[in-house]
């Protein structure tokens, strides 16, 4: 196994024995490295801690973003609904019926026929005038059914004979008899 080394050794002259003795390789005792451990541990802990804290922060920020999303989504829904409601109000204001009503209130009328003002020459074509029969913008109230306004029924009653009136000479009796007769008359008409 160590033949080449032995060959070398045997070839070296004996006079250099001392020098060889001195130069002989010896096993160096292993140096104990105690200093490296602490920084390494610190580094690993730092990395671990950093990772955990980072993850925590990341998660927190995600959660915060989620809160924000939910809040913003709600706000967006609310604002969209508001926009739609306002749009609806606007459309209602734009209702030609409402505009016509407002115009009539201001005293405006429909024109009878178109008239044109030529911008270049200032010439007026057609005769501007108001409509002879104004436009009725509201439907007429429906006619009241005849059933609801019955004719006044007049029942003529012959004056009580003078002889009976003489016996009971109070107005009350005459009034009472008249009322009774009217009642009868009404009954007949039904």
């Amino acid at each position, binding site marked *: 196994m160590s033949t080449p080394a032995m060959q070398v050794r045997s070839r070296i002259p004996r006079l250099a024995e001392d020098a060889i003795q001195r130069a002989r390789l010896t096993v160096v005792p292993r140096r104990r490295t105690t200093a490296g451990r602490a920084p390494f541990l610190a580094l690993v802990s730092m990395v671990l801690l950093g990772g955990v804290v980072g993850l925590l922060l990341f*998660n927190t920020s*995600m*959660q915060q*973003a*989620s*809160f924000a*999303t*939910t809040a913003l989504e709600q706000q967006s*829904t*609310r604002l*969209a*609904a*508001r926009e*739609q*409601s306002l*749009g*609806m109000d606007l*459309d*209602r204001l*734009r*209702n*030609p*019926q409402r505009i*016509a009503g407002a115009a009539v209130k201001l005293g405006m009328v*429909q*024109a*009878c*026929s*178109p*008239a*044109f003002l030529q911008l270049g020459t200032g010439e007026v*074509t*057609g*005769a501007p005038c108001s*409509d002879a*029969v104004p*436009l*009725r*913008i509201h*439907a*007429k109230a429906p006619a009241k059914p005849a059933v609801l306004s019955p004719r006044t029924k007049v029942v003529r009653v012959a004056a009580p004979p003078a002889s009976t009136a003489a016996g009971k000479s109070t107005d009350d009796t005459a009034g009472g008899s008249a009322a009774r007769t009217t009642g009868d008359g009404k009954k007949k008409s039904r």
Partner: protein
Amino acid sequence: MPATTTPRGTRRGSPQLRLRVGFLVIAIALSVFGARLVQLQGLDPNSYAQMAAAENLHRVDLPAERGDIVDRNGEPLADSVAGMMLIADPKLTGAHAAELAAFLYKRLDIDYASTLAKLREHKVDGTEVRFEYIARRVPSTIATDIMDEAKSRGFKGLDTERDPVRDYPADDVAANLVGFIGTDEPLAGFERTFDKQLSGKDGSARYEVGGGNRIPLGESTVKEPVDGKPLQTTLDLDLQWYAQRVLQQTVEDSRADSGFAIVMDTRSGGLLAVADGPTYDANDPTASPKADLGSRALQDVYEPGSVEKVLTMSSLIDLGVVSPRTRIVVPGQLRREDRPINDWWQHGTIPLTLAGVIAKSSNIGTVLAADKFKQGQLYTYLQKFGLGQKTDVGVRGETSGLLPAGSTWTHQMQDRIAFGQSVSVNGVQMAAAINTIANGGVRVSPSLIEGSATTDDGVPVGTDHATRKRVVSAKAATQTMRMMERVIDPEVGVAPGAAVAGYRVAGKTGTAQRVGAECGCYDGTDTVSFAGFAPADDPRFTIYVVVQNPRNGGGGGSVAGPAFSKIMSYALRRYAVPPTGTQPSQLPVEW
């Protein structure tokens, strides 16, 4: 040493025994775990997955927004607003029902008494009611405000749910065409016909929720909703409104049953207004009788009467057998086989030109002129004018009218059809036929939808599908127009009331006997109408006004004519159509 170990060994037993017991325990434990695993994963995994999901997995519908129905300028006839329904749990609201009812009554337009009854604890068929509708289709801004206020006042048991609001901002304007929506589905008009396009497709979202917030990195799937597409009509909101009001006034003042007015763009065939009267409020359709909810202009048939003479005359001129100056001797009464034909006014034998026949609306003159048709010619022309066929503008339940088949025509029938009886039409059909004359003899098919849309029957309709077909020559159309101008003439015509000052107007009156629904015969009532276009020499609009059964004794000229004039005047003004400045025709009416 052995003395000390032996007692320990005897206490714990032999190692082999201990090992076996240990293995047995481990095996039992593992078997239990294994069995449980099989039970969870193998036998019924879904129910557990669902239970886990139900714990905090939320599923919400993402509603598609219903498309608007707009007029030609994009002004909405129907639009959608986010809405909510207010619901209550009487078991919870019962304690403070009176205060809550008063609060809701003040904030919403609802009945106090019935709301109070709903809010109080009550039973139906022995079971306690836990759900009551308080108000439906409340705009969500209002609903949210109410809920916030109710919460701050400490009312419990009130809740909301999505319930979109469909609003018709112009109430009754174009309601007969646009239709309306019921509680859950479209019930009439465009809303129903084009529901597929308008409704869109609802989407949905699933996500995990913790503490009211979405869990980031949790399960989350979103299927985006597809909003409904808007439907653009050819209608003009303001013109439609004006036409409806004029029609309403006309129907009321003549004490008529009903009526309609149609405004058609001469060149494109787009219908700018289709007014029906009496109409209804699309926001409250149940307040009106059912008969008023449809479109009479398209769904009712009637006999057009003398307006049809325009078609007869233009066909005759197109055939080259007559001209506006053709002389006709018109007797006081014309006997045809066993039936006499009369004119609307008493006269002896009078010499009228063809223009005079139109200007004075003589039935006898028309019948005499129509004798020049060969068998089947008038039928072919009327078919080309579009009579007897649906216009397919996209209105459901449209009638095709009644044009008797050519093979069934008798001589008498042709006489009557020549002046517009024994043939039935729908309003838009007739307006399109008259528009053919206005458009130089080319019939443009009418349309109500801008662009293209598909009905629920799968028929594509709209301006993209409009067709143009020549019916009579341009010369025949011009000559007919010149004859129609004489109708408006205050000296010789029957409808001076239809004139629009400063403009050349061509038109024709119609007063037709009306077929009663009950007897199926002419019941003595009339359909009066006026159809015309302006400016006569360069027409932009064709307007057709029809009034059913006026009771003031008026005819086409006196009832429908002024309505025509008003609407035409408004249309010309609105679209800034200047007068052409040419002189109206002075064709002789007598000879």
